[in-house]
């Protein structure tokens, strides 16, 4: 699963917006949303929130955990502990990235937050590398993992799975773990597969 697909899944997370328009309840296939009244907060999935924000139809509210003090505490806690500490949301990286890209004007101290989240991510990735390394070295056949996000697993997994299947001999752990690719421009759409397209490519509206 590539980073774009992980982002696609992260976009289902609910965030709070303050719309500047009014609309009755809408009945999407995936559930009900709204009603929307100007000035009244309402929860919508991230994909909709970003689209509305791009069309200047709403303001985004940062989630309760996206606060400098709280994040500083989390980062320090993560650095102290050897194991993984609980994360604010399974998609904290993607949420941060999308919210800061599209709604940094709605989020106080956006740059500090970006740095804090990156620090948190780096600490966790380092732990993941260490534990994956030990997993391979000791030829473990099973591991229980709490609190490791999909993005984290994805970063680790191709190498982890490869090493496990070629278990004999020492497996070198890859040196670079890259942060998820930065995306520029409007909200990225999931990539299409050029070989077989069974439906039209999703198009961006707004």
């Amino acid at each position, binding site marked *: *699963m590539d980073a774009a697909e992980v982002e696609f899944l992260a976009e289902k997370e609910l965030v709070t917006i303050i719309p500047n328009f009014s*609309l009755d309840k809408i009945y999407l*296939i995936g559930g009900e949303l709204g009603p929307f009244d100007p000035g009244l907060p309402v929860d919508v999935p991230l994909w909709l929130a970003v689209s509305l924000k791009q069309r200047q139809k709403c303001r985004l509210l940062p989630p309760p955990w996206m606060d400098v003090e709280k994040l500083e505490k989390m980062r320090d806690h993560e650095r102290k502990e050897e194991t993984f500490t609980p994360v604010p949301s399974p998609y904290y990286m993607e949420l941060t990235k999308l919210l800061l890209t599209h709604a940094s004007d709605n989020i106080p101290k956006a740059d500090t937050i970006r740095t804090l989240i990156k620090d948190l991510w780096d600490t966790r990735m380092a732990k993941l590398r260490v534990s994956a390394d030990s997993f391979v070295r000791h030829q473990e*056949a099973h591991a*229980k*993992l709490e609190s490791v996000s999909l993005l984290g697993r994805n970063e680790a997994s191709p190498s982890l799975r490869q090493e496990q*299947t070629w278990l004999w001999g020492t497996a070198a752990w890859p040196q670079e773990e890259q942060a998820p690719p930065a995306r520029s421009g409007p909200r990225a759409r999931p990539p299409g597969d050029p070989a077989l397209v069974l439906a039209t490519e999703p198009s961006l*509206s707004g």
Partner: protein
Amino acid sequence: MTEELDLTRQDSDEGSEELVLTPAELIERLEQAWMNEKFAPELLESKPEIVECVMEQLDHMEENLKRAKKEDLKVSIHQMEMERIRYVLSSYLRCRLMKIEKFFPHVLEKEKTRPEGEPSSLSPEEFAFAKEFMAHTETYLKNVALKHMPPNLQKVDFLRAVPKPDLDSYVFLRVKERQENILVEPEADEQKDYVIDLEEGSQHLIRYRTIAPLVASGAVHLI
């Protein structure tokens, strides 16, 4: 048969199973099937009922939108959602086709030797596709290379030539239903087998082979 408001989907799959799901649950199931298919090393059971229901929902919504007033925002929100669902559906089907192409002789063999009553891993269309793919590959190899080989080397045994799916590859999973006594077989000979319990809601990294039946039954989800 019950109806929940006007949102229920009822479906009898050739009279054998009745699924009563809300559309939201249906989409959940589709997304889960998509994730499972993406992370599993082999082709999983085909889910024609989910695919058909989702297509119906999409068509239904499309119809509604055509008839609806030209309220730009509402229509575009619905369209965005539909595009997202279409993406998941086509990605799911593409993933399956990729596996069919990759493992075509094994997939066909498995279908041939499938016992009665066991669900198929291929939908009728996928089965037709797999057979055609095999036939085309055979023809291609024959015309490009085999017919120029000495007579006793002109046969290709696809079952041996094409690699099998690696069921020993590791997968991440989340437990939906508590499982007890799952056997873990370490690779190294010095390590003994041991059993573990899978607690509901926990996440694990383990070899696919051990937990394959749990994926099929829905007791665990691949993540």
